[in-house]
């Protein structure tokens, strides 16, 4: 039986890697993928703690997170596609309409 610490530390590392990727990468699609990494790190923590608490409730939460992530991916990718059609670019630096 592997202690929960290992999984929790792995979850922290994955979350931080996702956060770094979000700030370092320059194109919208990869930034979007790093959000998915962060969601998955949260899922890992939820399942680890569900096992420690001996209940299946944590797994239900993960179920909802996966569903919301799917909805988010659909809408987010639609928005990225729309930005690409209008601006012909998906680099986050080139999109500065709100910068005044």
């Amino acid at each position, binding site marked *: 039986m592997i202690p929960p610490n290992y999984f929790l530390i792995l979850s922290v590392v994955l979350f931080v890697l996702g956060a770094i990727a979000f700030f370092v990468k320059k194109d919208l699609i990869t930034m979007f*993928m790093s959000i998915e990494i962060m969601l998955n790190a949260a899922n890992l923590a939820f399942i680890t703690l569900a096992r420690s608490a001996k209940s299946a409730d944590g797994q239900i939460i993960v179920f909802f997170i996966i569903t919301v992530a799917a909805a988010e991916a659909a809408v987010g990718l639609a928005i990225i596609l729309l930005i690409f059609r209008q601006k012909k670019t998906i680099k986050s630096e080139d999109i500065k309409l709100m910068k005044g």
Partner: protein
Amino acid sequence: MGYFLFFLLAILTVGAVLGMIISKNQAYSALFLILAFACMGGLFALLEAPFIAVVQIIIYAGAIMVLFIFVIMMINVRYGIPAEKKKWTIYLSLVLAVVLVIELILSIKGAFTLPVSTAIIKAGPTDLGRLLFTKYLYPFEITSILIIAALVGAIVLVKKKEKE
């Protein structure tokens, strides 16, 4: 055996995420991410969550990443990522990342003393389905409304305007 599998999957996951960050091609990034999600499915199976593991592989590594790859193929940008990035921002982000790791580990330290459970939790598809339709019925229905709204929203957003 369990430890061996854990370390194998953990190293593969972290390596795949690093590959996604380093890779300059978006399609390679997406493929690395599929590897990372599949390995995380293995980790979920190690954590006695077989149903979530299968859902992770089918929905995440399957459906969501196929969506990403579709969009990457539709956009298909051919530009090199400019090399003249400001170097100091990368070093600064590494320092901040280390700080964030320490901070998060300190904040979850309370969970480290949890006992290692030996009891087998009931988390098969039957048990999860029963929970989903009794205790979590309202969140479940709200999620279905969310999915419908997201579907309609995505279609309306991407639809080409008809010319009058």
